[in-house]
């Protein structure tokens, strides 16, 4: 590995040098947290964690696969190109998600559109030194240190960045900033180890097995009742990758690939209307199963990297990792309410006895 030390003050100049040669995607500072977008000199947020995962640059919400033009009854196709770009300052969890996606899309026949973008994208990954409240990468083996192949590894040591190039592309990125870099001292490497270990200790021990236990014990019906079917968990998850294609335009047009979500009923609904995952509860359970059972079977890697984004974006009162519904559905509370009511009724000389509250699961209206 080629190593160098970059003072923080010199980072914009390095990025500027690279951006003269290719598009640089970096975490721009925005209210509420960093947002990955094309960098054109804006202030960066290199401390916070992004809600939208940088994997969206490999799997956009919507991309054009090819254009089609019809002339004299024959079609010609023009594929979209993927110009080289640098994805700057992603986290080890997101890098690990990319490793999972590489296996998913790499199984033969491999997905050309994904690898077009993948090959064209240089990855600069920052080791995490300050985990977020929602993070649990360490227990899942996807962080806080870089665990997978990337082009350049960066660690924030306070006054500057320890940069470690792992590939030729990484070396060339560093070279773009020749004159900006200094030598690496043993103390730098020691500090890196110390910070990473500290970060690892600071996270909750949320292992895959613990999550699988929660999945077994979870009251999926109650969770399903909380679910607002927003699909947010699937859109912010860096590992989620399901998609649909759509041809738009007759006779000339384009084939679009769009992100899809198993949270929506239409995803699993069959043409005749039958649906193997008819209720939100079933669809939610399926999503967890996919992450902790199905993807591991297919790829050998967990389908969850412990980034905690699903928890951050979920608009219901669900705890996404403990899978607890923060809803008072337990009998104790019902009894308490009934008792209160009974006392009130007795006070009012009312002969009616309290009746149990809302119907519990049973005759639920079928939801699409």
């Amino acid at each position, binding site marked *: 590995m080629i190593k160098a030390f970059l003072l923080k003050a010199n980072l914009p100049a390095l990025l500027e040098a690279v951006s003269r040669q290719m598009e640089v995607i970096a975490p721009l500072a*925005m209210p509420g947290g960093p947002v990955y977008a094309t960098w054109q000199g804006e202030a960066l947020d290199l401390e916070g964690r992004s809600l939208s995962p940088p994997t969206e640059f490999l799997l956009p919400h919507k991309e054009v696969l090819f254009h089609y033009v019809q002339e004299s009854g024959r079609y010609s196709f023009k594929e979209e190109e993927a110009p080289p770009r640098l994805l700057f300052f992603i986290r080890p969890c997101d890098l690990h998600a990319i490793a999972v996606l590489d296996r998913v899309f790499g199984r033969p026949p491999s997905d050309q559109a994904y690898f077009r973008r993948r090959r064209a994208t240089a990855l600069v990954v920052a080791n995490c030194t300050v985990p977020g409240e929602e993070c649990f990468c360490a227990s899942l083996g996807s962080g806080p240190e870089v665990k997978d192949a990337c082009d350049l590894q960066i660690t924030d040591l306070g006054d500057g960045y320890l940069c470690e190039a792992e590939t030729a592309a990484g070396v060339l990125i560093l070279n773009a900033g020749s004159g900006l870099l200094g030598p690496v001292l043993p103390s730098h490497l020691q500090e890196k180890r110390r910070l990473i270990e500290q970060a690892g200790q600071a996270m909750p021990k949320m292992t895959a097995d613990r999550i699988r236990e929660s999945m077994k014990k979870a009251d999926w019906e109650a969770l399903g009742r909380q679910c607002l079917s*927003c699909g947010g968990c699937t859109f912010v998850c860096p590992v989620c990758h399901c998609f649909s294609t759509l041809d738009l335009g007759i006779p000339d047009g384009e084939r679009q690939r769009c992100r*899809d979500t198993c949270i929506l009923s*239409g995803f699993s609904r069959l043409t005749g209307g039958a649906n193997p995952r008819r209720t939100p509860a079933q669809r939610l359970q399926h999503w967890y199963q996919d992450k902790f059972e199905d993807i591991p079977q297919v790829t050998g890697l967990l389908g969850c990297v412990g980034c905690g984004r699903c928890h951050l*974006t979920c608009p219901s009162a669900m705890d996404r990792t403990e899978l607890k519904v923060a809803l008072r559905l337990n009998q104790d509370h019902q009894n308490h309410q009934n008792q209160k009511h009974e006392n009130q009724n007795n006070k009012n000389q009312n002969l009616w006895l309290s009746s149990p509250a809302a119907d519990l699961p049973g005759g639920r209206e*079928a939801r699409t």
Partner: protein
Amino acid sequence: MKKVHTTCVYCGCGCGLFLHVEGGRIVGASPSPGHPMSRGSLCIKGWLAGDFAGHPDRLSQPLVRQGERMVPAAWDAALDLTAERLLLIREQFGPQALGVLTSAKGTNEENYLLMKLARAALCTNNVDHVARLCHAPTVAGLGYALGSGAMTGSISSLGQSDAILVVGSNTTEQHPLVATYILRARAKGAGLIVVDPRKTPLAETADLWLAARPGSDVVWINCLLNLIAGQGLIDWQFLEAHTEGYEETLQAARTISAEKVEEICGITAADLAQAASIFGEAERGAIVYAMGVTQHAQGTDIVQALANLALATGNMGREGTGIYPLRGHQNVQGACDMGALPTVFSGYQPVSSSPARSKFEGAWGTVLPEQPGLTALEMLWAAEEGSLKGLIIVGENPALSYPDSSRVVKALKRLQFLAVCDIFPTETAALADVLLPAACFAEKEGTFTSTERRVQRVRKAVEPPGEARAEWQWIADLAGRLGMRWGYSSPADVMAEIASLTPSYGGIGYQRLESLGPAGLQWPCPSGEHQGTPILHVQGFAQGRARLRPVYYLPPPESSDAEYPMTLNTGRSLYHFHTATMTRRTALLDREIPLPFVQVNPEDAKQMGIREGMRVRVETRRGSVVAEARLSPGLARGQLFLPIHFSEAPANALTAQHLDPLSKIAEMKISAARLTKVIS
């Protein structure tokens, strides 16, 4: 790729989001973590908000009618023609023969300019918009009761409630981010009472679900008030210090017996008593409501009844308390605030008030009409009988969204001149003489005002297709042809004028909004130093005292009978928005519910030999539609539910134009209907 921070185009929650733009096209959307209300969440429509903008169906050129055909025209020609026809009508028949329906989907600036065009250029107060179909009773009812027709707290305030009463709102489907806060309050121990004829998803999580019969709300709310009084839970101190009219109101409530509630509403005395103690005992009680309250011939009374309840329990002016009308469109609150209403200028300043009129006359440099104008349905009645000759409709689809569609279409066809502006071809656009292509929310600058009175920026992410233009531009151009000299160079200019004439928006300006980021400003915000107002009525009521008013039950204008033995209710779905022009062009949303359906009680269905998915005909005195049957145990026997989204089975082909005399909203939740199988 660039990410543009803007405000969602769909519902009144007003979530912040980023539109992702690459190569001049929208390629995705994501939530705004820094937004004070939506805080990094979006519903499925929000995640897909950018999807429809690039659809090939987008109107991209002005079109002018030539017989049966609509022919492309240049903007100048289209606007020349429009001005000519409008001026001709005004000359021959007077300004009262003209009307304007503005867009609850347009920006505040566009609504303001359109109402200015109507009043200053066309000299008519015949200005209205779809609030007439949704929260006109709120504007009238809460306007009278509290002095202001808007949500009294912030949406996030609901997260602090101890008890929430949700009436006639399918919150998780229509206002998901409001439901988020209700669910969070619930998680912290708040009591949740849902009153709805259907067992909505929110009702599934409630402590108590009261299946009130449609339109019977005045009865159970009065009885609830009475039970709360009986349990000693009235806040007398609050009533005496801050309100008037409570004695006669409580007196009127006393006349409702438990038997009457059971008979008329179908709610048991025990359930109502439980509701009384849950709501009455709460330190912080909140009332949330939507169309199930307002879309009735007695809508204003029902709103008043809820206001009576909130006031009688002292649930006003504090975090977690208050009354929360949930506005449908992302800018219907703004459209009302901007005075796109027949009786008021911006800021609810009455057109009939001399001081208000002088102020606007001075600012606009013209004489303004004094007589309040016609409301939307009244305009259509005037068109029907021939006294309204010319109409401009912007970003609205009355042919599908207004009640009794065949009557609506007949009225629109009687007009001498109809100009329509929209982003997609609609059933209404098909009737236009001039059709103007608009820029959608992702293609222009402006502001929207959400249901929590939050004024937020909406930003241009991509260029509009073809020659489509932001409405504020062509409205100004049209005004120029009608003799006006406006000279706005940007929407920021327009907002500066709005702020100068509208006290509640006095401190709102583009520079200030930029510096505040996603948070925007909640009105009232009377000056540049004022920080905005999350909670209304904290120090009391601007009008002096809040007003309780006795309300009495009126049976609905149409009841079921031998010929039409069932009751038809109408409403919406999470996946489609109103007449679905945008959502049916968004692949993932269209896939969720691609075809019209009608909800039927399973026992009713069994009796009639109707199975799930069968095509059935729903008929009322106005018309008939065919849709697929959906067996729904959460629906009571004898009731039917049709969504309003589908042009091939338009719910409003079946509804009637029976209006609430106070707010002129139509009874859209109760129509006498019959159900038959379609024999093929």
